[in-house]
């Protein structure tokens, strides 16, 4: 039954005891404690008191980032020293794959919320379908459209009673982010962002092909281009947010349309920022450190998977947030 004897077996590297986990814990806990305190100071307490919370947050975050940097540095060093067997490398592959899967499920929650509101909750508020008398009893005059330009609260004339006042005040957007003027299509930023992000998936693939051929020059060039496209995407996205707040009246307070719009595009943008940072670090490793060979480049490969993942999320965003 035994297909291998122990002599043929490459030893699986089990690292010696390490301070990384405890340092990462301290950094993480300080930063989240700081973040939670900042929010509570802002919402429930004295905004002035938030200063010390900010300090805790920044100290924690810095410590956390430094620990993670060191952690990856050590992992890379171990690989260069040849400690990683083929089996260990497969553990890293599996780890990255299932991490990306968990990220997919995180976005799934927000897309699920979007679909639920658009197909069920929204129409029900307007007493369509099986919504019964909700409209007549609570939100008289509310008509459901998507993107929602009038919240139920506004339909009944603003903060009309205690129940809605407790729920906050929602000022709907004047304009949506959906495709508007066909004549001025080139002014529609999401289209440009789609083009940018889709091209960056191609450029990162070309970089990978170059690396597989052993052509480091090609790799560095196309990977650098990918990072650049990522930076441009983030800037365009930031500009779009500025437009939304300054000219469209679309904010986080704009009812469920603003909520879903900013949370979906915001978390996506945050993931682009992370993916871009990952690719930038791989680029620096290649250019400055001379890392990566044709058959050993998992750091890059994992980052590129992550990049393809944020790209695919964007395709869904473009479809369901901007177009449909």
């Amino acid at each position, binding site marked *: *039954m*035994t297909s*291998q004897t122990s002599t043929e*077996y490459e*030893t*699986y590297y*089990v*690292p010696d*005891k390490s*301070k990384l*986990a*405890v340092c990462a814990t301290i950094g*993480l*806990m300080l930063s*989240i*404690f700081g*973040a939670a305190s900042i*929010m*509570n100071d*802002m919402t429930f307490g004295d905004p002035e008191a938030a200063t010390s919370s900010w300090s805790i947050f920044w100290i924690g975050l810095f410590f956390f980032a430094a620990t993670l940097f060191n952690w990856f540095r050590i992992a890379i060093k171990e690989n260069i020293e040849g400690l990683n067997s083929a*089996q*260990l490398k*497969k*553990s890293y592959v*599996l*780890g990255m794959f*299932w*991490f990306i*899967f*968990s*990220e997919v*499920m*995180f976005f799934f*929650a*927000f897309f*699920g*919320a979007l679909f*639920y*509101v658009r197909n069920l*909750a*929204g129409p*029900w*508020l307007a007493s369509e379908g*099986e919504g019964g008398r909700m409209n007549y009893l*609570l939100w008289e005059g509310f008509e459901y459209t998507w993107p929602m330009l009038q*919240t*139920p*609260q506004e339909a009944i004339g603003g903060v009309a009673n205690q129940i809605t006042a*407790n*729920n*906050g005040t*929602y000022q709907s957007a004047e304009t949506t982010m959906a495709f508007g003027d066909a004549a001025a299509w080139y002014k529609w930023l999401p289209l440009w962002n789609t083009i940018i992000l889709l091209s960056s998936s191609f450029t990162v693939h070309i970089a990978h092909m170059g690396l597989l051929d052993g052509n480091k020059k090609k790799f560095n060039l196309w990977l650098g281009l990918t990072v650049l496209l990522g930076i441009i995407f983030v800037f365009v996205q930031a500009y779009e947010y500025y437009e939304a707040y300054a000219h469209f009246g679309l904010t*986080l*307070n704009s*009812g*469920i349309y603003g*909520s*879903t719009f*900013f*949370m979906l595009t915001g978390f996506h943008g945050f993931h682009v920022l992370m993916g871009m940072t990952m690719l930038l670090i791989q680029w620096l490793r290649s250019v400055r450190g001379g890392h990566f060979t044709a058959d050993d480049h998992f750091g890059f490969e994992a980052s590129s998977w992550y990049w393809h993942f944020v790209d695919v999320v964007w395709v869904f965003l473009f479809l369901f947030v901007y177009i449909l």
Partner: protein
Amino acid sequence: MGDHHHGPAKGLSRWLFTTNHKDIGTMYLWFSFAMFIMGGAFAMVIRAELFQPGMQLVDPAFFNQMTTLHGLVMVFGAIMPSFVGLANWMIPMMIGAPDMALPRMNNWSFWILPPAFLLLASSLFMEGGAPAFGWTFYAPLSTTYAPPSVTYFIFSVHVLGLSSIMGSINIIATVMNMRAPGMTYMKMPLFVWTWLITAFLLVAVMPVLAGAVTMMLMDIHFGTSFFSAAGGGDPVLFQHIFWFFGHPEVYIIILPAFGVVSQIIPAFSRKPLFGYDSMVYATASIAFLSFIVWAHHMYTVGMPIAGELFFMYATMLIAVPTGVKVFNWITTMWRGAMTFETPMLFCIGFLVLFTIGGFTGLMLSIAPADFQYHDSYFVVAHFHYVMVAGAVFSMTAAVYYWLPKWCGRMYNETMGKTHFWISFIGFNVTFFPQHFVGLAGMPRRIPDYALQFADFNMMSSIGAFIYGASQILFLYNVIATIVAGKPVSDEKVWDGAEGLEWTVATPAPYHTFETPPTLDAKPAHA
């Protein structure tokens, strides 16, 4: 072998900096037991208040904090980490691996848990009190009407999720990548199988929970309206997202328990597990079904009739693979040369009581009937039959079963059996009457109740104190075993036990299977 393969370091740094799966497993187990005591103490407050009708000891607001924290601590602090600890200890030894696949991340998964629970428990002393909206934290109770401590609660849930996701990724990588040569998937011990499937569930649903609490956070602090109808959102949306996490979560809790029972019953029946293949397929089927039944927690929320019917039939379907499992366990015992040591007693207790909990679950799955049972003590009785008599009993069985292998000493059998019988009686006295008060109309999560429920509630409280006290006996027995138990040196502590973990020395050396073991033709589970 490298130089690093020495024994454990001395002092505190061994535990803080360790990368050893056995050390990490031990920390998980002790941490979960501490949380079990803490959550148990909260339960004692609840039962003391409910001992008699009328307001006795605590005010209603504090009562609500107790029910909330009891649920959160027991689910996320006691049961889940205890099975992760067991996975850490046993999976590498069961599949012939030198350690977990990613040992440093393994340590991190553990060490973020204690501070996260410290943060959660510290909310008891914050202005406005601890979260008081129930462990299911339905919006708007948990958003519009929540105390300020909800922000810390949200972040601690994020950290618990992070811990679970990293732990699960580690388990998946270990099982998929580090089995000894010849250990094919269908030869893995069933505990490994159930944990592999559990880990998939965790990676799939913990991010959804993170999404739910993030939406809460945004609604509370940044003016979004996910759960507010005034802005076009819907509080019911919260329930959908929560239960999309929450229903797989209950299988996350019970599947490893199934795995434990599938290891122990064959050992003390001295027969191979009946229907190994069908056990694997049943586990996978339960996991799949768990994703399409979430709204059976929400029958009374106002769903379209098509939704009610779909979720009702899908829920009933779960009884089929679960029935396969119960059938297989009983058939394993059939004509076996059975003995009844403490682990086996807890497994048989599990089998009987879990089946009762399964049947009440079937009653609850019927939508029109659930309109009566919803949010009554019947539900409380139901899920304690599966959570306590299911998950906690099997975890207790696991500790008795593997403790001699872990520490090389035998526990006191008489004390163990006493622990079982007191637990069994205490548990049933606590929760069986709750079926009756629930069917008679007593709602859950209230500090006071109508007079006609008085007798059964007093019984419940007495049972709860008995059950709680019996855990002190358990703690004493475990410590006494570790400190001064009768030494055992046989590799195979139980004569009927099978599997790779029984081929290593007793107590298990600090490092096991640094080179993979040789598997004979016999499957590990036979």
